[in-house]
């Protein structure tokens, strides 16, 4: 696969999105394309699968050669047999109701007699063959992604392109995807190109990294060498693995000799082997002794499936939340986090048991009454936009309640969440990070005493993630009690004061950060993966509990005697 002097301009844009790109990918490569938002990564990938310039209008220059043929001479269908593509919003790529039906659909359309066998083969390659007769909407997020991959694989292309394959997945499911990609690469000899933010996965799986900036290729290097260029990467909002950054900082400080930076845990261990653990005193969190603000009492909750069976989410759940707590609710996909949040705002009703908020049972309250005390921000911000502009969305709840001074409050919220330039825009048309900011503003519009956030950092690139993290830290100051459901462990480590682990509808563990993360049994069982730096510290000293690079460098010192 080759690109020669490729440039591309979208019709409405002033500048070229791609500027004179020259690139070649060799058979068997596992390439990562990195770069900040708007650097042209997705556009480049769409040029490689023939959608640009065939289905997407714009001014295209240059040449793309696949398998020795100029892409212009091929139809979109012929390209699809050479290059498979999996979108970032992969669920929209699934067009048929049943799993096997979707996996074999392309083969059917291209008139291949053995289309069912091809579909089954593709499902086997992504290890989804036991689900072939299921309805597509019954699959989990990870499985849906694998199905989209199978749909592309069924035409047996030699090249696969995946746009941010793991952005929406918890670490266990992300591992599954990358292990499958690795097998496709090694066993089935596919060439794989991923657009990826997570450098830890890049370090583990990819052999080459291409950095894009402003529509150009800044460099194209082997993974080990690429991850050494820490400054370039951070400049483009890509953060190298924590071990790499820790080593870089230690080298800059003079604690380590200048040299090649480590890119994975093993190399990190080798480098820091001679450091010894001298933990510094940190401010200890005090146990919150306030009165209870939410009490969940013996709650049982179940959904009815379409076969009229009860799908039990919680049975006899008990939980007590104190005024002013900042809680992270963790657990794998499907452990009941979202259901718990929905139950607290009265959107779903428990079958048995009771929920008491501020000494009142929520059974006796209507949803709109509850909304003044407790508010929920959805995982998918699009579903919170019900008006035609951000400012109308934010002020909606105060206006219908005739709350005095809502204009002033609106101005404050717009300032606080830096939405001044966006206030007249329709929420749905904003970028991911902007949407998230707006949804937080909507969620806090009624000054709720309790704020619930469902996965506030999912699907964001690192820069936007940092912005949202900062907002979440600020929210601590003006919202009393906050509960965040998340599988973003960095967020948990840096933000939460109390961590509740849900597993199969039960509270598996509950306590301070250190209590949870020191309990390796729970981590193992529930599939929680602490940040890489935590693992590095543990491998150096079993007692170590370190969550950030800075803490690591403070707690571990060079031991010249060793």
């Amino acid at each position, binding site marked *: 696969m080759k690109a020669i002097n490729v440039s591309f301009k979208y019709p409405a844009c002033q500048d070229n999105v791609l500027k004179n790109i020259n690139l070649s990918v060799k058979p068997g490569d596992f390439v990562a394309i990195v770069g900040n938002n708007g650097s042209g990564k997705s556009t480049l990938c769409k040029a490689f*699968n023939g*959608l640009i310039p065939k*289905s*997407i209008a714009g001014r295209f220059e240059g040449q793309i050669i696949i398998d020795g043929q100029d892409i212009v001479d091929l*139809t*979109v*269908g012929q*390209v*699809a047999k050479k290059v498979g*593509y999996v*979108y970032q*919003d992969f*669920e*929209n*790529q*699934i*067009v*048929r*109701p*049943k799993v096997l*039906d979707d996996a074999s659909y*392309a083969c*059917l*359309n*291209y*008139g*291949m*007699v053995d*289309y069912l066998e091809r579909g089954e083969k593709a499902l086997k390659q992504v290890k989804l063959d036991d689900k072939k007769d299921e*309805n*597509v*909407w019954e699959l989990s997020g990870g499985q849906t992604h694998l199905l989209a991959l199978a*749909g*592309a694989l069924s035409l047996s292309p030699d090249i696969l392109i995946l746009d941010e394959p793991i952005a929406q997945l918890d670490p266990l499911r992300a591992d599954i995807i990358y292990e499958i990609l690795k097998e496709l690469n090694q066993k089935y000899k596919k060439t794989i190109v991923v657009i990826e933010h997570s450098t830890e996965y890049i370090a583990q799986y990819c052999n080459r990294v291409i950095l894009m900036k402003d529509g150009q290729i800044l460099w194209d290097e082997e993974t080990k060498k690429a991850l050494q260029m820490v400054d370039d990467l951070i400049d483009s909002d890509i953060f190298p693995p924590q071990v790499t950054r820790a080593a870089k900082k230690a080298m800059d400080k003079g604690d380590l000799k200048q040299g090649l930076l480590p890119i994975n845990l093993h190399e990190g261990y080798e480098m820091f082997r001679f450091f010894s653990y001298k933990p510094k005193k940190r401010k200890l969190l005090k146990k919150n002794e306030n009165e209870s603000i939410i009490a969940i009492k013996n709650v049982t909750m179940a959904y*009815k499936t*379409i*076969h*009229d069976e009860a799908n039990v989410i919680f049975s006899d759940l008990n939980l007590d939340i104190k005024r002013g707590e900042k809680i992270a609710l963790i657990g794998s996909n499907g452990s009941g986090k979202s259901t718990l949040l929905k139950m607290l*705002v009265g*959107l*779903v009703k428990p079958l048995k048991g009771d929920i008491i908020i501020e000494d009142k049972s929520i059974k006796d309250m*209507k*949803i*709109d009454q509850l*909304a003044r005390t407790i*508010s*929920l921000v*959805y995982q*998918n911000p*699009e*579903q*919170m*936009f*019900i008006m035609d502009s951000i400012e109308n969305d934010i002020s*909606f*709840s105060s206006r*219908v309640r005739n709350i005095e001074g809502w204009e002033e409050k609106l101005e404050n919220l717009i300032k606080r969440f830096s939405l001044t330039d966006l206030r007249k825009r329709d929420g*749905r048309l904003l970028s991911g990070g902007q949407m998230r900011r707006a949804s937080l503003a*909507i969620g806090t519009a*009624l000054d709720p005493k309790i704020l619930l956030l469902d996965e506030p950092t999912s699907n964001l690139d690192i820069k936007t993630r940092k912005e949202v993290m900062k907002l979440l830290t600020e929210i601590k100051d003006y919202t009393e009690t906050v509960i965040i459901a998340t599988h973003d462990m960095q967020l948990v480590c840096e933000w939460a004061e109390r961590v509740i682990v849900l597993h199969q509808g039960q509270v598996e563990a509950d306590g301070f950060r250190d209590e949870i993360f020191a309990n390796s049994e729970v981590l193992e069982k529930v599939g929680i993966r602490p940040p890489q730096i935590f693992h590095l510290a543990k491998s150096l000293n079993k007692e170590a509990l370190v969550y950030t690079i800075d803490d690591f460098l403070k707690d571990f010192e060079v031991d010249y005697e060793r």
Partner: protein
Amino acid sequence: MSDEKKTAKENILEFISMDNIKNQVMKNAYGNTDTPIAKIDPRVLMVWYLFFAIVPWFVNDVIFLLGAFFLVLFTTIQAKVTTLVIFLFALGVFSQTGWLLILTFVFGGDGSAIIPLLILTLKVSTVSLASITVFSGMDPDNLAKGLMWMNFPGRMSFSISYAYRILPTLISEFQNILLSYRMRGLAPKSDTFKGKIKYVIYQIRIIMDSFYPLLLNTAKRSRTTVEALEMKGYTYASADDNAKKLKLSTLKIGANDLLFVTFSLLWLSITNLISTLI
């Protein structure tokens, strides 16, 4: 007494709750793939349906119509159609002619008024139940194949199966948007009778309002879908007959299908015979 009344009210509330309607729709669309009706060859069902959709309009014989009615009632039961659909069917028939029939009974109308009304009601019911059997009892994929076989345009059969694919997504998204309105909006107080009416109007209004964001979100989504369809050869296949032939080649008429046809014919012949004998 008051306890019973409360449970009745709760039952009704539960029946019209968003969750239940969602569950019923989903059950109707996806939950009946293993019924006897779903297993019958779509082409056989289509022809069978054409008969019951057309013939009853031209027949005025009460016994024959009764026979046909019981046959389609039987197939509807076999298709395990959900309560929601049955409820809508009953409401539909009643609003068409049923209320006239009942009124005539109540006010002591004689045979001359009742018989024509009964015939009309039977016709409407038979045709509706036959439609319910076929369209609600069939597997969506089979339905698409059946339409394809009858030479309906490929786009139509694709649209049907795509609707089945996207329906759950749309329903849950709709539900979330509706919940946004309910959380952030303010419902009128429903203590007085006037308040209750206002409350119902408010609920209907937010249901209608929720469609607007839903449409916009769907439009946003469709870009990926359109590109993916292009890559999966959707356009290619609509210009090419091979895909259709391939798809239809999986259809086979088996013993079950013949049994179904024979039984239907036999039943109709018997009712016809009885009607000529009387």
